[in-house]
């Protein structure tokens, strides 16, 4: 009886089998793979376990029935994203070129381009990218490979890529570029690059 979780002894709905054992304990022992001399020999306990085993194997058999499985996840995902696209959060407009030019780019659009720029450095994956101020400061979070020999040098490479993209591809004047390394990632932790399939080139 030592393995009995205390709560099952106090369940008012519990039931004592003719052999004296509590049904809840017999089932809990089975679930946790606990055996003793009694349970291997007692007909009542064995019957109780057999019933539960049959129940579980039957519901699992039904559960893996292909008719029960999701078939068309693709159209479901499209539907979710259609609703999401009605509630976009583009962020604030940032000045392109000179501030008095009345030319602007939405924060999200710029952030996306700058994340992509950071990811041009091999092994780097970008997460949060916050932009603000005049000129625009960048706060960028990245995951870099665990095997990076010189993290400072890598951070500088990222800053350079971000700076070049801001000037040459967008035309956005940047202030400070802060790169924060939030994780060092080993190969098997990282997801395949195809995870990026949703973003535009």
């Amino acid at each position, binding site marked *: 009886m030592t393995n009995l*979780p205390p*709560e*099952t002894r106090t*369940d008012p*709905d*519990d*039931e004592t*089998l*003719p052999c004296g054992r509590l049904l809840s304990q017999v*089932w*809990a022992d*089975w*679930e946790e*793979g606990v*055996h003793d001399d009694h*349970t291997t020999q007692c007909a009542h306990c*064995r*019957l*109780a*376990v*057999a019933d*539960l085993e*049959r*129940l*579980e194997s*039957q*519901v699992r058999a*039904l559960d893996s029935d292909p008719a*029960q*499985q*999701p078939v068309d*996840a693709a159209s*479901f*995902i499209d*539907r*979710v*994203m259609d*609703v*999401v*696209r009605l*509630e976009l*959060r583009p962020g604030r407009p940032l000045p392109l070129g000179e501030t008095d030019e009345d030319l602007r780019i939405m924060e999200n659009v710029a952030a*996306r381009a700058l994340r992509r720029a950071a990811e041009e450095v091999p092994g780097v*994956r*970008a*997460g*949060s*990218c916050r932009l603000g101020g005049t000129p625009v400061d960048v706060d960028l*979070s990245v*995951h870099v490979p665990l095997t990076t020999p010189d993290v400072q040098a890598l951070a500088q490479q990222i800053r350079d890529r971000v700076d070049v993209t801001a000037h040459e591809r967008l035309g956005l004047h940047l202030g400070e570029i802060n790169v924060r390394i939030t*994780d060092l990632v080993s190969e098997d*932790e*990282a*997801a*395949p690059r195809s*995870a*990026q*399939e*949703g*973003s535009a080139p």
Partner: protein
Amino acid sequence: MTGNPPPGEPPDVEGGRSDDTLMTERAAEGDEDAFAVLVRRHAPSLLRLATRLLGDRTEAEDAVQEAFVGAWRSLPEFQGRSSFGTWMYRIVTNRCLNILRARRPQAPLNELPDLPAPAYTTAPDRITEGRAALHDVQEALSTLSPEQRICWTLRTLDGRSYAFIAKTVGISEQAVRARVFRARRQLTHSLGAWQ
């Protein structure tokens, strides 16, 4: 009697934990493409979860869709204390719990679930070796209380630990164990009686 190996914790619902974190940060900042990646990655397992919990594919799709849209709205406040996958699992489970609760008034009085299950030892018949019909199982499941059904499904079909279920549903582990036990007693009885 060799006893089943206990169902262990299944592999985490997300793939690529590192990438999930990054996509969640991006989506929180309004990057809908990153959110689309998360939806694509998590929709299949969440749909399977909701279908198990509700027993109805259409209702499951509605529940998961609303859960995703709600997640998109509250992502800016999501502090990342848990992973996106765990967070969504919790949202979907609780939404399903509410849907099951709302269903209850339609259940016939004699199926009102929280009555104690009939005594196991006096069940007229044992479950036979034959495979129970889907209909029988679904009918048996509908006699469970929403809380019992959720706890039992997460434990038996989704293979979650009692501690995980307790955290997901927001009740004590002891309460989860009690609910799973009562569900099992009710189900072995119902299915046995129908053979």
